[in-house]
């Protein structure tokens, strides 16, 4: 995928979560990320898709999840949008706080932030958009960074 965009429109189902993860796996591999990075990117996309399907669209068959992969400059930019009520960022607890460690949910956004270089979450009344950015570290990128 060189300077191109791949887009998917997916149903609000569990299969979408697997499909999103598999697409991320394939595209990240094609871009030359190592196995560990591919796993991290794919897991971040999976978690974002889980949020979109479960918490955003709430499995509503009338609502879709859109998934875009774009390589722009030195970045892989992945955008996931749902058509739900909009994620309330204030209500997401810190999963590392001692009182939350034994909670059985609430780690998805944390994992996404841990695995990606940049995460931008934009909730609105018509849905949530989450943009995930991973820097592509090719040889020329490394030289450029080292000289800065």
């Amino acid at each position: 995928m060189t300077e191109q965009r791949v887009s998917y429109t997916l149903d609000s189902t569990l299969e979408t979560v697997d499909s999103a993860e598999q697409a991320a796996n394939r595209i990240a591999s094609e871009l030359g990320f190592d196995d560990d990075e591919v796993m991290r990117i794919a897991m971040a996309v999976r978690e974002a898709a889980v949020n979109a399907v479960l918490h955003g669209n709430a499995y509503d068959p009338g609502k879709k999840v859109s998934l875009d992969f774009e390589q722009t400059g030195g970045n892989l930019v992945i955008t996931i949008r749902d058509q739900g009520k909009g994620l309330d960022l204030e209500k997401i607890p810190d999963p590392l706080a001692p009182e939350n460690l034994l909670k059985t949910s609430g780690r998805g956004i944390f994992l996404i932030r841990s695995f990606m270089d940049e995460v931008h979450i934009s909730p609105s009344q018509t849905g949530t958009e989450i943009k995930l950015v991973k820097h592509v570290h090719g040889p020329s990128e490394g030289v450029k960074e080292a000289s800065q």
Partner: protein
Amino acid sequence: MSMKTSTRQINGVTIVDCSGRITLGEGSVILKDVVRELLSKGQKKILLNLGDVNYIDSSGIGELVSAFTTVRNQGGELKLLNLTKKVHDLLQITKLYTVFDVKDDEASAVKSFS
């Protein structure tokens, strides 16, 4: 690859050999059902062998936490055995590595149950 489990007993400890993926949906449900069934039979010393679990997502992590607290609340113990690097790293970054009792040798893990 979806999750599969099989159980065996050693010295009163039930070892659950897990393989595949513990993820939202089937994998998490299978783990929940296995632990629930063991508890219903009074088997409260549970060692989850995750040596062949190559992937866990946040739902899977949540299910591990749920299993841990459910067993503990019934007076039992649940420990983890043979974490793969991926699972180990996930438990580290979520600060759960120190919550769970994690073992890397089956014989000593079995002995460690009270």
